């Protein structure tokens, strides 16, 4: 794809370019043309898009198939998400071999939300491996050219493998030690959970600096008061700052003109995240931003403009 590099994402990270990644969430459907459309809108702004794998334990269209279609139809590089919840090591191995055959090069290894949180809570959760072990397995496929048990792979795959971390986690020390485990397993980049807390984020980034693994921070621009409130209530451990919630609520109530309201909300997001991210770029070794803006892609170009490439 890009000379000595396996993917554009790898090239950006290795060359020390600040990266933007986006997020796409194919749903319970056989037609992902809307998702592909979103991918097209993000082209030129983000270097790659994460494609979720049964997020929140809901049974959706296969992540590998969606990833393939998005790369093929929209020309958008993907970060293929893979969870340990629904597949044992055999299924994970074949999924990865298939993914590589279909041109997928970036993988994000996740544990996965528990089945009881999802839309088929009666299901049996698998968790044959955990996320650190999945990273280990992928690296083994790439570096040693074998599966987990040591059986050789003909035409072994080449992947860049990432893991996740949570800057909001308390106690932070436990999260850092978990990060260390993933680094030992072979994590090559990290994408984080969404955060709004600059102090916690700085502390987290400072602590993980020593591992020299590029960290891409998750941010979540708030499209409306409703979404902000939902997020605040339903994502424990990650509060939306009060002043943001208040301003959004006032805009929601106070501004009747739809266009004007949109504009004000966009301005608020650009101001908050602009400052937040510029500050982090100044004071830490942040490698990039993962902008979770499903259904709010219009915010990405102006955001990038204020935060900078």
């Amino acid at each position, binding site marked *: 794809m890009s000379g000595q590099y396996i993917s554009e994402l790898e090239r950006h990270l290795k060359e020390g370019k600040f990266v933007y990644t986006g997020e796409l969430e194919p749903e319970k459907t056989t037609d992902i043309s809307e998702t592909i459309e979103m991918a097209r809108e993000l082209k030129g702004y983000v270097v790659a898009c994460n494609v979720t794998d049964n997020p929140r334990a809901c049974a959706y269209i296969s992540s590998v198939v969606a990833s393939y279609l998005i790369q093929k139809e929209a020309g958008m590089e993907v970060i293929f998400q893979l969870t340990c919840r629904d597949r044992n090591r055999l299924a994970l191995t074949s999924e990865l071999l298939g993914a590589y055959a279909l041109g997928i090069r970036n993988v994000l290894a996740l544990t996965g939300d528990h089945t*009881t949180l999802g839309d088929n809570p009666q299901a049996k959760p698998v*968790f044959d491996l*955990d996320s650190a072990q999945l990273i*280990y397995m992928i690296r083994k496929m790439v570096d040693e050219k074998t599966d987990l048990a040591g059986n050789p792979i003909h035409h072994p795959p080449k992947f860049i493998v990432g893991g996740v971390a949570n800057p909001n986690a308390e106690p932070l*020390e436990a999260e850092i030690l978990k990060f260390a485990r993933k680094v030992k397993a072979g994590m090559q980049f990290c994408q984080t959970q969404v955060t709004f807390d600059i102090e916690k984020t700085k502390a987290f980034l400072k602590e993980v600096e020593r591992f020299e693994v590029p960290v891409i921070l998750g941010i979540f621009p708030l499209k409306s008061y409703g979404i902000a409130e939902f997020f605040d209530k339903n994502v*424990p451990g990650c509060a939306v700052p009060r002043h943001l919630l208040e301003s959004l609520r006032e805009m929601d109530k106070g501004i009747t003109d739809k266009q004007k309201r949109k504009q004000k909300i966009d301005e608020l997001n650009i101001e908050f995240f602009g400052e937040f991210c510029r500050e982090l770029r100044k004071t830490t070794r942040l490698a990039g931003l993962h902008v979770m803006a499903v259904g709010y892609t219009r915010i990405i170009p102006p955001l990038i403009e204020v935060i900078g490439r």
Partner: protein
Amino acid sequence: MIVTREKPLDEILGYIWPFTKILIAGCDGCVHPPRGLREAKTYALMIEMAGKAKGKQFECIPVTVAKQCDNNIVYTSLQSYINEVDAVLSLACGVGVQVIVEVFPDIPVFPAQNTVFMGSQPKEGAIFYEKCRACGECLLGYTGGICPVTRCAKSLLNGPCGGQVNGKCEVGGWVRDCAWYLIYQRLKKLGRLDLFEEFRPPRDQRIASSPREVGGLVR
């Protein structure tokens, strides 16, 4: 101990309905709540009364066995009754029920309990907590004596996962303790956080694959 819960009486009546003479076999072993002679007598009374109310005359013989998981003890304790009854209702765990089946293959045997897990109770009357899943490869030496296989909802070996918030687990809505949070705290207290940082490779799931067998010791 092996924690069990009683099955609804209607389910039990459904099993034994075609029969009249029922041997109610308690167990004095590790089954919990206690299911010895006293409980066997209670079951006998309940079944006879419920039968009567529905127009059926059961005849129950309540007995108990020191350990229903021991073929020999089961044989000596029950063999004198077996020819007198039409069916056996076992008050023991699932192991006990199966041992009776093995020892007396010609008579129908039914469970009165749902066997739930191996666990403990912090104090009398309190809730029981599952503590061990008999995974066959005990990790407690690395985890400060707290079992991640059983007490982490995802059985993670390199936890905690992203679902941990303020020490609580995402499963059940952040009410229960996250096992990996407990492990972290314990190892920190013991000055062994080095163990918490150690990557644990995938396990050999064959060790925990049922059905399992182990060599016996001759007494």
